[in-house]
């Protein structure tokens, strides 16, 4: 029953991802490895689409994944699973809002969680980068170390990284420009 599994996987993601934005990425990466519902390349398309369209990133990622796995019903079910934990938690803590926020154990747990979340996102990011910037299959065949690297994508990623950190501007512009460069250079 794919719908039930989809709901369960996203419910877990919604319940354990803390920190917003890319916090769902490590969970989606593990979902990919475990279920094979989509590819690692799909994962970076998901990030690109989620970053360049309006709406909360976690919801965008859930919609993209759900639709890829099981069409429109899949998208609805994935989003329902993703939002249900946050929805229920707010209903529960609604009356205890002030006490909850200042509770020292909540603060202590968060201290550990934030660091773990950053580490998990870094790790999932490296896996995504591996498919975009490295060519592991070619390297395995030839054994030549330089064949491991895809020079043009690495240069492009480095250029985006430096520009984005120096200039800022919305990610959408970098995504559009990189798509154009990809077409022109036939990446």
């Amino acid at each position, binding site marked *: 029953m794919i719908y039930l599994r989809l709901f369960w996987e996203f419910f877990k993601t919604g319940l*354990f991802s*803390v920190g*917003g*934005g*890319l916090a769902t990425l*490590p969970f989606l990466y*593990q979902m990919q490895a475990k279920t094979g519902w989509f590819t690692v390349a799909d994962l*970076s*398309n998901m*990030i690109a*689409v989620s*970053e360049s*369209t*309006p*709406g*909360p*990133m*976690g*919801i965008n990622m859930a*919609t993209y994944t759900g*639709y*890829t796995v099981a069409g*429109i019903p899949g*998208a*609805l079910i994935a*989003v329902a699973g993703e*939002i249900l*934990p*946050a*929805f229920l938690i707010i*209903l529960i803590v609604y009356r205890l809002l002030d006490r*909850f*926020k200042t509770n020292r154990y*909540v*603060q*202590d747990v*968060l*201290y550990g969680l*934030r*660091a773990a*979340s950053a*580490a*998990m*996102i*870094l790790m999932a990011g490296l896996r*995504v*980068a591996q498919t975009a*910037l490295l060519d592991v299959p070619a390297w395995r065949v030839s054994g030549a170390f330089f064949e491991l690297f895809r020079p043009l*994508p690495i240069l*492009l*990623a*480095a250029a*985006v990284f430096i520009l984005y950190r120096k200039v800022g501007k919305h*990610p*959408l512009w970098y995504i559009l420009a990189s*798509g*154009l460069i*990809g*077409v022109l250079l036939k*990446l």
Partner: protein
Amino acid sequence: MRQIPDLFLTFARVGVTTFGGGYAMLPVLQREVVEAKQWATEEELADIYAIGQCTPGVIAVNVSTYIGYKKGRLPGAVAATFGVVFPSLVIITLITALIRNFSGIAWVQHALAGIRACVCALVFSSVIKLAKKAVPDLPAFLVFAAVFLLSLFTDVSNVVWVVAAGAAGVMIRRLAALRKKKGGDGT
């Protein structure tokens, strides 16, 4: 009861006008929810954000559930939360369908290859930004490093790292508090 469609529409507008969710949503919420509708005060909004950061899941869902519940109890919470995710559902489903239908075309593949390289750069720059806040001291760095290495070399579920990091957070901070107290007594 007129409030229910109003909650849906207002939060749908919030969803469609924010890129990235989380903090990107704050100015839009201030304008729509605090100033235009007066459904919440600035302080309340800040409180919900603090809660959103201490609870799992998407912050946009925390905020919409809270304000929806406050204005219209359970139906209000459902209407506001559905409103904030509705634009994502429609927009992302359309884009995903497009990408999947046209991904066989050569130039689309080149564009996606360029975009994937760009996404690596965006993810790493987000991780750096996040780590600056999430890893404030040496114990937090140790949690960060441990989770990173363990998730790199094992394929244990992220859920385990989240729970363990939360427990580690409590232990580290309680120990630090104890030591401080002792030191204080000694002088």
